[in-house]
């Protein structure tokens, strides 16, 4: 029996790993885009401040930054509601509202919808970590790049990026480890990840230990990740 359970769980671990890897693959870069959005200084109504020196409504309008505002509202909604709810809405929403299940049927569709929900959710959390990392790099670094005639992309990629990465490794490791365990939420729309498969032995064979045995899988996975983060932190320890 142990090997039957173990093989089933190994297969489920494959699904969990895929969900984990695909979420990271898309949300790590998307989070950076969202971070830039929330730092956007674009204020199309700024010209108003020239005409109205008086404080009040015009000053508020002149300082209005639409991209920053929009992004912050999205981040608020995503961070402010449970991931499980977002997962349900993303999977069932299109079918319920537009009578059009864009995700396709079967396990494939469920998995794609899950990845979409996870990417959206995690990129919002990552964006805040990125922003903290970018804002933590001293202004002097950017100015030093500027006076050397570097362009904004050059300054970001050649100077800021690595310093940001160094700063965000600890909070990112927290968030990524949380993601490992959040993958279990996918079972709400019947994706066969670890917990769902472990639980299934309760119904089919009356066994409870497979469910708790999944904990070992999570522990080993997080253990490997922890070693990896330690390695990255040591690698980036060559500068201060």
């Amino acid at each position, binding site marked *: 029996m142990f090997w039957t359970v173990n093989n089933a769980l190994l297969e489920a671990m494959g699904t969990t790993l895929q969900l984990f890897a695909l979420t990271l693959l898309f949300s790590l870069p998307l989070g950076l885009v969202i971070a830039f959005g929330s730092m956007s200084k674009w204020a199309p109504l700024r010209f108003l401040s020239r005409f109205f020196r008086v404080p009040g409504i015009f000053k508020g309008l002149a300082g209005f930054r639409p991209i920053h505002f929009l992004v912050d509202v999205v981040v608020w909604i995503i961070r402010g509601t449970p991931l499980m709810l977002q997962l349900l809405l993303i999977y069932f929403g299109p079918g319920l509202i537009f009578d059009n299940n864009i995700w396709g049927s079967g396990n494939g569709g469920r998995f794609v919808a899950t990845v979409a929900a996870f990417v959206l959710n995690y990129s919002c959390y990552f964006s805040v970590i990125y922003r903290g990392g970018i804002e933590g790099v*001293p202004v*002097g*670094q950017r*100015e*030093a*790049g*500027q*006076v*050397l*005639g*570097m*362009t*904004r992309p*050059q300054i970001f990629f*050649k*100077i800021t990026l*690595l*310093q940001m990465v*160094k700063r965000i490794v600890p909070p990112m490791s927290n968030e990524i480890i949380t993601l490992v365990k959040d993958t279990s939420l996918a079972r709400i729309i019947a994706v066969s990840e670890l917990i769902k498969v472990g639980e299934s032995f309760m119904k089919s064979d009356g066994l409870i230990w497979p469910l708790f045995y999944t904990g070992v899988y999570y522990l080993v996975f997080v253990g490997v990740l922890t070693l990896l983060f330690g390695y990255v932190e040591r690698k980036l320890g*060559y*500068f*201060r």
Partner: protein
Amino acid sequence: MSILQVQNIQKHFGNVNVLHNISFELEKGQTLAIIGSSGSGKTTLLRCLNFLETPDEGRICVAGETLFDAKDPAAQKEKEIRRKRLHFGMVFQSFHLFPQYTALENVMLAPELLAKEEKDFKSRKKEILQDIRSRAEDLLRQMGLEDRASHYPHELSGGQQQRVAIARALAMNPDIMCFDEPTSALDPELTGEVLKVIRGLSQAKTTMIIVTHEMAFARDVADRVIFMDNGVVVEQGEAREVIDHPKEERTKRFLARYSAEGSMRT
């Protein structure tokens, strides 16, 4: 003709008038020291020259070319400013070396990025990069840092870091080198080595503007001195003349405080 002409620069931060009608000129090969108490606008003036701040009024010309004119906002596009900045080199009070690069890489980074934009870069890549490298090594040698080339900034003393920063600025071959209190973040022992390097640049006829609190140094090294107070130029003239025989009451008071505190080091 003077290499730098600054005309009627004005700068406000909110309601505070930081710079008021600043005008001066600088001849090629000369060293200009800007002195004055903290908050007098010296650093802001230097930042205006380097396009880190945008003046509200005034004009800045280098070698006859108008780099900045407050009346012509169209010419203040990011892309153009970037090239114009290269007329000036800037050395900051707290160095701002890039921590993830070695001393040599710090010096080579900007010249390499600039070279990559040249049309013939691909065909002459090796040669160009080799030139940049040997020039960077020369500059570090000139700074007395040839054995520190592969060190990271956190492995260097403050004085060494500042000398790397000077080499980094020189690597872009600016027309005018600007120093913003280059020794204020250093303890007295390390101040000397940085001042020695700047003195050497001055003797080599590098055109320089130095914001400094080192009065004795300004007197020795600078050709001209500007004394600023509350955002205005109170007095300017030949360095020894202004420091030894100030005419204005405010300059006298400022300089008296320095000699009284015994900070007139030689």
